[in-house]
């Protein structure tokens, strides 16, 4: 009898868990639709968005550029060691450029962006909620979704592809610096192999599409976690942690899905 009770208890826990997660997923989707729906107001006040681009974009510039440079350096070195075994170190440029435009550029930028900008968005929104600023706005008939959330979301969507492009470009230059002046790969072969193998639409264009999708995902997850955080110091800290965990995992999962869709043939 007690075993049956325990089993029922476990089943109840499972059901509660599933229902709670489904509810929060549904809430997130409804909030996303509402934010997109109400962001027409931003056309009248683009300043709100550019303020946020300064915050999530410009201030992430240095970390993105430096990481891109070092990723390019490492790709140049590792790629050279591997390609040298097969006597085809001329393909170094192609290897560096393809891996950066297709995968590393969008993905590493998104992960860094989640850590650099996503966390501060969550903490900012969470503290606004804890300080009851959002409720105060509602009292003054100012809609917090369109006044606070929407500009930050759009800033993330705009800034993320720009940052990924900068990351990729700096990374290619880093790979060039290690490959050509330091190791001594032929400069002409480096660029011509790269230009022969990288396609403008299917490689660079798809990388850009990827980074836009990641921008939507990471920024929205950060904003949602902040908006739904428990209005206590502990709640805000948990929400910040969840932002990093959930957005990193969803970036990696989305990357797999997008890669399978884009480069399958």
């Amino acid at each position, binding site marked *: 009898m007690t075993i049956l009770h325990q089993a029922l208890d476990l089943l109840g826990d499972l059901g509660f868990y599933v229902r709670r997660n489904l509810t929060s997923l549904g809430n997130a989707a409804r909030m996303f639709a509402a934010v997109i729906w109400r962001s027409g107001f931003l056309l009248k006040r683009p300043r709100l968005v550019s303020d946020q681009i300064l915050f999530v974009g*410009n201030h992430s510039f240095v970390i993105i550029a430096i990481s891109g440079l070092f990723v390019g350096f490492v790709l140049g070195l590792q790629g050279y060691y591997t390609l040298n075994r097969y006597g085809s170190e001329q393909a170094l440029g192609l290897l560096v450029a393809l891996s950066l*435009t297709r995968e590393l550029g969008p993905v590493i930028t998104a992960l860094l962006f989640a850590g650099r900008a996503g966390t501060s968005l969550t903490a900012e929104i969470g503290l606004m909620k804890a300080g009851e600023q959002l409720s105060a706005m509602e009292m003054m008939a100012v809609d917090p979704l369109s006044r606070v959330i929407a500009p930050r979301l759009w800033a993330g969507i705009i800034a993320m592809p*720009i940052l990924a*492009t*900068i990351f990729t470009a700096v990374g290619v230059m880093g790979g060039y610096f290690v490959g050509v002046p330091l190791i001594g790969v032929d400069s002409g072969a480096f660029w011509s192999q790269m*230009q022969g193998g990288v396609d403008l639409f299917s490689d660079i264009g798809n990388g850009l599409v990827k980074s836009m999708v990641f921008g939507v995902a990471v920024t929205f997850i950060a904003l949602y976690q902040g908006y739904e955080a428990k209005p206590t110091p502990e709640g805000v800290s948990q929400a910040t942690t969840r932002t990093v965990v959930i957005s990193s995992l969803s970036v990696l999962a989305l990357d797999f899905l997008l890669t399978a869709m884009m480069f399958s043939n």
Partner: protein
Amino acid sequence: MRKSAIDIWVGIFVAIGLLAALFLALKVGNMNAVSFAPTYKISARFDNIGGLKPRAPVKSAGVVVGRIANISFDDKTYQATVVMTIEDTYKFPKDSSAKILTSGLLGEQYIGLEAGGSDDGSDDMLANGEKITQTQSAIVLENLISQFLYNKAADSGQDKGAAK
């Protein structure tokens, strides 16, 4: 006035992003190879295309004159039909021939167009939708090796016969 400083910084950020995109398009990608010049389509049948892929180059005298649009299998003749898009500025006579070649020993495969002899007058040039009749299939390495081994075996058989 505080706002305008922010705008300048955001403008610098976006401009750097655009510069990076330009660098990717011009220096990393093959922006030069993406041409929007008008093209016409011709097709050719091959017994075996080897490892030819769509978007592989079509070269004449080593110069890229077009790209392969699509490759399909014709179950009437059991041959591969290859459709190529050739840039409008390049015209070829009707008796031109197409070969599947390999750049280097292990490089990518491409189609080599060789102009035929009747290049006088523009009325017997290949037009949109027409076919090249003279084709030469890709060289399949396995066939070459098996042919070589077969010859070798035949030779040694003959030698033995002569010795007896």
